[in-house]
């Protein structure tokens, strides 16, 4: 762990009932960098990313051992508040899931429930969040239209803007482009590049080329184990573990 580490995972084990889904995972996540989690389906990468903002709390029979610290505070510690953590560590999912509300309300919703009532303040947050998510120019004249009328790619950027509206430090993305066409995917990738100047981004992806393009660090997981973690360029050019090599070159998976 070094001074740039924002999340530090130490000896993390997770069980879904009897199923041991994460096995002794230790991993630092660097601030203002993109870390991608790769691995075949069922390897635990989504389970791991969901641990970072305690989304697994909602899964019955889920049990966790080990620690995940965020700015040196254990997010599973007794004083930690899950709602507070999810504000600081936002999440974007595979399928865009805007609220069935206007574009404006989708963004204003989070800040409002966290106590911002002033309309001018909300307007500012909506505009800056949409700008940061590279969506403002496309929607600024129709903020009161339903978010459900946006294209899939626009909806996904809206969901990113919604996450940004509550001023997080970390953005978790669970296969954010798997439901998008190549143009929308490219826009999200450009956006990730922009976002990392200010935020820490952790992305789960099934696309090897996407992981190679967007991330600074890559973690390869297999059957609940973290097999290899390192600089993305090293992982994709010369992985140290044969299992990583075999997976990324498509020899299994």
């Amino acid at each position: 762990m070094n001074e740039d580490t924002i999340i530090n995972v130490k000896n993390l084990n997770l069980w879904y009932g009897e199923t041991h889904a994460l096995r002794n995972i230790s991993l630092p996540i660097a601030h203002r960098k993109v870390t991608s989690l790769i691995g075949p389906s069922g390897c635990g990468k989504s389970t791991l990313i969901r641990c970072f903002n305690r989304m697994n709390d909602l899964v019955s029979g889920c049990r966790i051992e080990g620690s995940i610290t965020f700015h040196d505070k254990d997010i599973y510690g007794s004083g930690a508040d899950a709602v507070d953590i999810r504000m600081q560590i936002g999440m974007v999912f595979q399928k865009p899931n805007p609220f069935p509300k206007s574009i404006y309300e989708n963004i204003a919703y989070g800040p409002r429930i966290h106590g911002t009532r002033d309309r001018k303040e909300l307007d500012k947050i909506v505009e800056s969040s949409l700008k940061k998510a590279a969506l403002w120019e496309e929607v600024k004249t129709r903020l009161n239209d339903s978010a459900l009328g946006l294209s899939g790619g626009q909806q996904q950027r809206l969901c990113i803007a919604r996450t940004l509206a509550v001023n997080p430090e970390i953005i978790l993305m669970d296969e954010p482009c798997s439901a998008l066409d190549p143009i929308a995917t490219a826009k999200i990738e450009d956006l990730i590049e922009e976002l990392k100047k200010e935020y820490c981004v952790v992305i789960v992806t099934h696309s090897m080329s996407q992981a190679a393009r967007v991330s600074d660090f890559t973690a390869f997981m297999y059957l609940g184990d973290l097999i290899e973690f390192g600089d993305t360029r090293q992982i994709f050019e010369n992985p140290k573990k044969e299992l990583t090599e075999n997976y990324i070159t498509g020899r299994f998976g």
Partner: protein
Amino acid sequence: MTEKSQAELEQLHQSVVSFGKFALGMLKESIDAFESGNTEQAMEISRLKNELKSMFVPLEDSLFQYLALYQPVAKDMRECVASIRIIYNFERIGRMGYDIAETTAILTKCCSLKDCEALISMGRLVITMIEDALSAYEDRNITKIVTMRDRDEEVDTLYCDVLTGFISRMQEEKDAVPVLTRYVIIDRYLERCGDQACNIAEMIVYMATGDRIEIN
């Protein structure tokens, strides 16, 4: 990667080996022609230049296409990228074989060949370097190329010795200058072929291990 793409990459590997053998064959025969003063053999090699080009371009295209279609990573990426570099090195070796053959053809037409043993032994040394590089590529095994730097230094020393010898002879035998000048050119071609063998070896090390080393 699918079985299809693995099979394609293996096929490309074999094509690079065949191309390497063809280019090396041109160099070997050009040295044979030079040694025996065989004009006919030298002219035969000259005719292979177009064939060399017609093998190189489609092979290069296929490697580019492989990169674009499959976006290989890790050892597959290294193999593809190394192969692109290596076929260029082999193409240069083949063309230098052609150049030596062309020079030999002129020599045998206009002058008598004499005192070229040092050049020939240097040529043989360079050929073993290229043969070992080709074999290392074919087997994806770097054992045969670990001494490449030492061998290249030996070639460089020979190059300088031969060159110095020719220059002093030129000063003493003015009439031999046209022949000796061409010997000097061949000397240079052979030294460059040694460098190409080192370039190939560097890429094989990268392909097999991921390490970037510098040999020459």
